[in-house]
């Protein structure tokens, strides 16, 4: 047991446990908090894999902005708890669990028995994943996708405003 393996097992069990907590908690606010724990753990994995800039933007954008939006909507709607509605599809839950376990089993089988071990042998070059190296690749090779992303964000913003706008003149509904 090397220290790296112990760190990995600890962090992986936190990630899986918080994922399962998100899945099974009755209160949507608790689910959101579990998901934030999961995102922060995954950010630590990014650090271990040499993605410093991605780790920081994961914490800032995912655990910060996106989850705040989730919590805001949960509390705005007051939809923390959903009353148990009668299951319209009672066979769906056991089938979903079986299929989910099957998905895990076959990915792990392919990964460990078919693909061979993926080992990163070489040490990373100096500054791999730092903001300057990510920035130079982003603004040289991927400049066009970057600009398209800005249009996507603009469209999403306008769409969100239009979808949530209170309609004034539909008293007939």
């Amino acid at each position, binding site marked *: 047991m090397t220290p790296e393996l112990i760190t990995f097992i600890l962090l992986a069990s936190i990630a899986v446990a918080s994922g399962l907590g998100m899945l099974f908690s009755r209160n949507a606010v608790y689910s959101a908090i579990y998901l934030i724990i999961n995102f922060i753990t995954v950010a630590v994995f990014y650090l271990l894999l040499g993605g410093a800039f991605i780790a920081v933007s994961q914490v800032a954008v995912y655990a910060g902005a996106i989850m705040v*939006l989730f919590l805001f909507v949960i509390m*705005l709607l007051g939809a923390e708890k959903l009353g148990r509605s009668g299951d319209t599809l009672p066979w769906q839950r056991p089938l979903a669990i079986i299929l989910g376990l099957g*998905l895990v089993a076959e990915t792990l089988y392919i990964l460990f028995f078919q693909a061979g071990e993926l080992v990163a042998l070489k040490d990373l070059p100096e500054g791999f994943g730092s903001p300057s190296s990510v920035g130079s690749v982003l603004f040289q090779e991927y400049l066009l996708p970057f600009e398209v992303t800005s249009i996507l964000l603009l469209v999403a913003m306008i769409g969100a405003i239009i979808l949530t706008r209170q309609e004034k003149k539909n008293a007939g509904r």
Partner: protein
Amino acid sequence: MLPVSYYVGLSAVLFAIGALGVLIRRNAIIIFMSIELMLNAANLAFVAFARVHEALSGQIFVFFVITVAAAEVAVGLALIVAIFRNKQSIDVDQMSSLKG
């Protein structure tokens, strides 16, 4: 350095948890969170393979996926708010009618 396949295996497990959440939960907001979990698992696989091949393109893709997830969450939550206004509920079982 651990074999990178451990990280990819963890990403598969997280993806399965997210897929399970989409299938067994009825709360629309929790379904959205499960989709975020699946995107996150895919990001972890991207970063792991970027480490194997020492290519920064994987990390750039993670950056784009995070942006798309932000846009998706903004539009999706706006849709949920609109549905809640109409039906006073975000239970996906009750969104079964095509008309209002």
